[in-house]
């Protein structure tokens, strides 16, 4: 019997940024490239009526909002396992676009109960080797996991992992003191917390695969793009060319796979309207 499967995103707006709008753009891109793929959103914020039907489920954040007092609202991430409506779930950050058919990823991911990406790519398609944003991982021998795209199947092992993730995220300072001697971050990071759980459960080989090129994503943080000097914003360095067919080039490089654009002002109204127009056209 086929298991239910779908994408799940957590979106909580703050004063500056509409993460729900980002989630809508993500959903539009997904529907454009993967029309049969389901997507659900976990949010307490309102969604424009125009975009509500992009989502198969609109799920309230369970058990209270743990991120009420913070700008960077990640404290609820551990709840995604518990509120996913799917047996097999790919979790994505909201600031992503799905630019190609990823239906075959499900076949690969079916081999795992839990899977985290460990290799990400530059906009030029090169595997990221720089450690600018990953010093805590490298200098403390933590597994180099990216939670921006990860997968779980409802299972005892995945439940155990997420139960630990809840514990670590709710007590992140204490766990950082134990596991991170060098370059200790001063904020709670899901990637770091997931890496700590991986060490506790000694399960790196069970939840990652350093050889495969996918599932993965293009990571647009500027200082891992193999540029000569550090930059504040990638959008100050290379152009974005989003065409009428929803094709995207960044600095002359055609983008495929999943794009993690990371800068909130990347989202433009014409991107939403282009995708929406194409969906409407396809429906007719």
């Amino acid at each position, binding site marked *: 019997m086929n298991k239910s499967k779908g994408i799940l995103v957590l979106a909580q707006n703050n004063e500056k940024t509409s993460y729900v709008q980002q989630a809508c753009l993500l959903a539009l891109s997904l529907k454009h490239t993967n029309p049969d793929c389901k997507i659900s959103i976990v949010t307490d914020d309102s969604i424009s009526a125009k975009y509500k039907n992009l989502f198969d489920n609109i799920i309230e954040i369970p058990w209270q909002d743990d991120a009420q007092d913070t700008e960077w609202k990640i404290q609820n991430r551990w709840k995604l396992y518990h509120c996913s409506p799917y047996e097999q779930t790919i979790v994505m950050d909201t600031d992503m676009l799905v630019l190609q058919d990823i239906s075959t990823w499900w076949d690969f991911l079916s081999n795992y109960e839990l899977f985290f990406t460990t290799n990400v790519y530059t906009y*030029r*398609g*090169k595997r990221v080797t720089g450690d600018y944003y990953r010093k805590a991982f490298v200098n403390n021998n933590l597994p180099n996991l990216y939670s921006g795209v990860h997968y779980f199947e409802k299972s005892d092992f995945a439940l155990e992992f997420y139960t630990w993730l809840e514990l670590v995220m709710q007590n992140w300072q204490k766990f950082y003191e134990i596991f991170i001697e060098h370059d200790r971050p001063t904020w709670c990071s899901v990637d770091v917390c997931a890496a700590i759980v991986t060490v506790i459960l000694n399960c790196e080989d069970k939840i990652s695969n350093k050889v495969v090129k996918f599932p993965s994503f293009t990571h647009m943080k500027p200082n891992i793009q*193999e*540029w*000569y000097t550090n930059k504040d914003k990638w959008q100050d*360095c*290379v152009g974005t060319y989003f065409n009428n067919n929803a094709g995207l*080039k960044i*600095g*002359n*490089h*055609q983008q*495929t796979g999943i794009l993690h654009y990371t800068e909130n002002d990347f989202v433009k109204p014409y991107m939403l309207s282009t995708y929406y127009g194409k969906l409407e056209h396809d429906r007719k």
Partner: protein
Amino acid sequence: MTKGALLIARNNGELDYVKQAVFLAKRIKKYLNIPTSIITDSVDYIKESFDKTVFDEIIKVEYTNDLNTRNFYDGTMFYKTANFKNNYRINAYDLSPYDETLLLDTDYIISNDLFKSCFASSNDLQMFTKAHDVANIRDPREFIHLSEYSIDFYWATVVFFRKTPTNKIFFDLIKHIQENWYHYVSVYQLNSTLFRNDFAFSIAIHIMNGFSSGDFVSPLPGKHLYTIDKDILWKLTDDKFIFLVEKKDYAGEYTAVSTEGQSIHVMNKFSLERVIDNE
């Protein structure tokens, strides 16, 4: 299938590319045992000054005084500004008399038989993308991407191509890029408007790969070794080179480096010509 090497030699008043081509054609015969043809605007000069039988065919093109100029260094401390007559490479596909062509810069000094395997390979287009500086002290980034934000760098110094419909499109695309060079300089965020074949070929490859990295071009056999024009070729005996390579942070001082059995791109053409003259 006919096969051979193709050289382009258009003198600029400072450098004698014809002399370099004659020298290289002899080495191509020795190491690769294939004929060499030359594209040149100096047919009479070849006939008067050299043994023209080193060339299989001499393909005449009109003399032009191009606007493209650049500095040609002879070691760290000396340079001359001269015409950079590099705009005929795009015609190599149309002008080559061969079905299978090994297109070479005249300053790429063949010293082994590795390129014989180009002709045995089923890959219709072969070029170098990675390169290795003989001095190994300089920042190689200018030869990795066309600029900080731009695309992968491919070397047009050595190009193996077969006459195929796809390669015809590729060379036509390079012509289009040259004709609209300033547009591509802007779009590809190049730092200089100087037309460079390496750049035009790289842009065409990028486009043929669907605006991404890909396998439209296969790598040539061996490694692309180079010395820049701030190094000096001091001596060349058969396949043994002695270079004086610039010292890091000590302008005008050099370190001796020798190689054996390696084909090398010798960008200091003045020193190459001195070595040829002393043969």
